[in-house]
């Protein structure tokens, strides 16, 4: 995993959040790194018949049952393509761990408040309501995901 560690300089969280960024389809998305429990590439999932189509399956994460969601499908895009670069981002939400399967992990970037703008209604085919905002960098546009909104069933 190519990652750049940016030291937390102690400034208030709002203005300087570290974002773990990753690709869902072509879109570069990011979530607050503090909401991430871990990132793994354990795809030994048990499929759950009759589950919603965005559920990849369930995974044993050190004795805990974690539901793995296909983030592409969940966000209304096509399924995440099976690839060596696929990863599960395990996040904590409402007292449970949920895994988000993404196409690939990208860098960790520092989100500066003044560079974050409200999300447009559409980011690379993703609905705007999933995003807290977008951050422009020199080379790319990072959609900052609203995890709770994404995880709503």
């Amino acid at each position: 995993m190519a990652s750049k560690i940016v030291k937390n300089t102690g400034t208030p969280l709002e203005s300087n959040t570290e974002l773990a960024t990753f690709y869902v389809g072509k879109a570069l998305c990011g979530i607050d790194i503090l909401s991430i429990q871990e990132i793994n590439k354990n795809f030994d999932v048990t499929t759950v018949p009759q589950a919603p189509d965005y559920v990849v399956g369930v995974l044993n994460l050190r004795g805990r049952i974690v539901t793995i969601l296909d983030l592409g499908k969940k966000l209304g895009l096509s399924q995440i393509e099976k690839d060596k670069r696929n990863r599960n981002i395990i996040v904590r939400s409402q007292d449970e761990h949920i895994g988000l399967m993404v196409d690939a992990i990208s860098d960790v970037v520092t989100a500066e408040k003044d560079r974050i703008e409200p999300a447009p209604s559409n980011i690379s085919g993703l609905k705007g309501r999933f995003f807290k905002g977008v951050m422009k960098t020199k080379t790319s546009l990072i959609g900052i995901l609203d995890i709770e909104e994404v995880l709503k069933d």
Partner: protein
Amino acid sequence: MIEDDEILQMYIEESLEHLSDIESDLLTIEGDGENIDIDIVNNVFRAAHSIKGGAGFMGLTTIKGLAHSLENVLDLIRNRELVPTPNRISVLLKGFDKLENLMNDIQASNDEDVSEYIEALANITTSSENGDEEQLEIEIKETEIIESEDITTDDESQSNNSFFLNITLADGRVFPAVSQYSVDQAKEDGRFIYLVEYDLIKDIHNKNKNPTEIFDSLEKTGAIIDSRIDFDSVGTLESNQLFSTIPFQMLFTSILEPDMTTTLFDLEEEYIHVISDDMLSISNETDEVSGMKAMPQKIVVATKPLDSAKITKHVVKSEPKIKAKIQPAPGKKSEPILESETMEHTNEIDNDSINSMNMSSKPMGSLRVNVNLLDTLMNLAGELVLSRNQLIQGINSSNAKATELSSQRIDMITSELQEAIMRTRMQPIANVFNKFTRVVRDLSQELGKSIDLIIEGKEVELDKTIIEAINDPLTHLVRNSVDHGIELPNVRESAGKKPTGKIVLKAFHDAGQVNIMISDDGKGLDPDKIATAAVKKGLMSEQQVSELSTKEKIDLILLPGFSTAERVTDVSGRGVGMDVVVTNLEKLGGIIEIESKTGKGTDIQIKLPLTLAIIPSQIISVGNEKYAIPQVNLDELLRIPASQVKDRIEKVGDADVVRLRGNLLPLLNLAQVLGIKKSFVHPENGLEYPDKRESIADRRSNRVDLNGNSESDNDSFKEDRTGQDRRYRAASAINIAVVSAGVHKYGLVVDELKDSEEIVVKPLGRHLKKCSGYAGATIMGDGKVALILDVSNLAQMAELTTMAEAERTAKAARAAEEARDKAKDKASLLLFKNGPEHCAAPLNLVERIERIPVSSIERVSGKKVVQYRGGALPLYELSQVANVSKLPETEQQEIIVFTVKGRELGLMVTPPVDAVEIALDIDDSTLKQIGINGSMIIDGHTTLLVDIFDIVKSLNPSWFEDEKLAAADMQESGQKVILFAEDSAFFRNQVKGFMTDEGYRVITAEDGEIAWNILKERHNEIDLVVTDLEMPNMDGFELTAKIKKDPALSHFNVIALTSLASDAHVKRGKEVGIDEYEIKLDRENLMKLIRRYLNM
């Protein structure tokens, strides 16, 4: 006050236990009315008594006083001097409630005011003593801690009753405030009253005794009226003999004479005082106050400065540990002092620590565990340690065998340990249920309703945490039933119901869950009103509501928000806080189901799942995934070999059923229900292919589908079909887990049956909550997740498609099966033996059974005959015609006499000869030969069915010449045609044989329906109808009725054949128009009848 925490704790626990029993007992007493069950009253009395005794010992004066008053009333009830009316019981109940209150806050108990209760109780006692039986209106206000002025006023009112006595001992000491009533009672009964003084230090502590033991042993010989600690004699702090004695005085009545008492009490004589009348004096106002009321105050006053001084000291030193120890001592009153002083001296102590200290003195939070169970746990822990040592040793020395052995041991110990620990947590649901008797009683009284509460399944055990958590939701539901479910008596009567309503509270295990049912026979819920209310509240639109089913409308009351507005009593009332109930239950993973019929009542079912437990389960697999089926749902495992699939699995309608021990069991294909793409591994190339069989029973054949194409999957593997058919490999056997859940019992078709394992249930994430087919997930030994199947929900899911069909058809099939069984011909047979062979013959052909001496048998012209009733009876034996053993030679010969063609003949047989009535299930091929119709199994023996006609025909063809002629005649004059309906193949062939022998042409039909269809089409050729009566699909009665009703066919004569013609049968037959009855296999008479009806 005694400060020994342990003893106090024990006392509180014991008392609370007593109190919980008391409640239900009191309610029983109330229910019994005048016919009191003395045992129950005694139970309550004893309980109150031991509470009182302990309280006296602990210095809990308020509790003692209250318990004493309660005891007085109970004593009156026990002596049948007082009828336990609801009012009186109410007072008692409230008194005991207060007692429980006091127990729960024991430290503050002495400061509580209970005079109201005591007064109310005293009123009951006095009213009975005065012979004044009128009902007293007794109101007890909820007590508050009252000011000291109030105490005086209360005491004044109390003293007016003046039924307390003081006992003055010879040395001037006074035992104050003894109930005059108890003393009088004792005197009346001629008992002696003793004042016994134990020294808590010398007599009890130093002798290693325990006050309760003493109480118990004394209670065996008499009764303890009162007890107290004589604080005055303890000595003062100043004196040097501090705590040298703590006299514990006990007023004891017994019939035992004074000279026996030293042994009884195990005390020196000087400590036992026999109380005489002159020692008694009526307690005056001040005395009483000092006895009953002033004492606690004194103590508080005495302890207050002491405690706060100590506390201050410790706080200054900042030693919270020591403080915690002191904390239980001060009552509520001293608390403010503590806090204020704490604040003054230090900031370190915050309120939290004080609260936590208070918590530590709370009596709850402990659990009684059987000592045996603890011992077991201890043993297991010991074994575990040993096994661990072995395991470590095994691993260190790389000794595979030792490691394996110890892992086995650890496996065993773990499961035992687990079970033992689970058992410590299990508690009967009675703990929750019992209190509802009281809830229902109080509430119904309040509301003026009459309600019977029936509690079932008290013994069902649940995990402690669940027991605690279901308390509130259940209370809510029961209250709802009482409040809104059951109508007022007059309303009920006008609705044609019994004035007394009924609420049933029931717990039972089902489908691996604990089910709790709360049913009432009240007015039920009105779905439309609920729907309207939901619309009004804006929870749903008119449109949405209109699309709901009745059940869905009722379920609306569970919606959050439905109840937030004012109580919806106009809508049958339920719904107040139902969403809270649902939330609470959901936290436990439970579900709630409501069924209600307007006007009839409401059933609320709560299902508490197995999530808290470790459950044994069967692992199965479908596709690539493993699934777990809880063992509780599993009835059996079934493997149907490939060769039997065709016979045992049938398709009824849309659904598959399997034949299991004569029953048809609906099958559910797990892959289908879950929508798993089935695949199979091709045995030759090892590749996976999708399985395209549509039904389990599908076996490959070159079927052509509707479009005229041959099935595609056949083409792809055609070459493989050489040699042994792949379908008959072991792997293509069908594996079925027979499961049951509630009403459903079905077979779950799975790919593989694996091991049985103990699994730990883990919940599924919220995104999978909607997948109702799973009860959770678990982690297998290989680290993969396996889903746990919810058998009952699976059935429900499938019900939408195949299940209902399967069940319906299975039911139909079962019914048909039953009908078939019923229709199976019962016949009376005569059993006998022919040498070693078991034989049988129709009983109705048998004339007599005789035993003759062999010597009387004569041989005349090659035939055996015996002189019999003035004629010669020809004798035959079976071996003459059939290929059976010859009869052994004996001195006596058993002979069965048959009548054939009006002539008698005897068949020589071997005993025993016995008659039975059984259903005929004849194999008419395997052993059929001349003289033998066939065989069947009777009592485990293959029995040959002897055909007497055949025997006679082959031995005496001349007897049948008439028939031959008649047949020949018929051939010439035109054959007569008989339609013969008979479901049993055996009888069909037999009777058809009789008929064709005589020249008739016979059209056979397997049942009435077929016969009917034949008759309709070909009635022109048919001359006569002969029918069996009991047949599937359409029986003989129905067939006859149809024939007689149809104008085109009504001219047909119908002869009914039956194996057992009862009068009822004959009557019914005549009604539908059966012309004649004949018994099956009575060939001659049948033929006679046929000839008669065909005018021959």
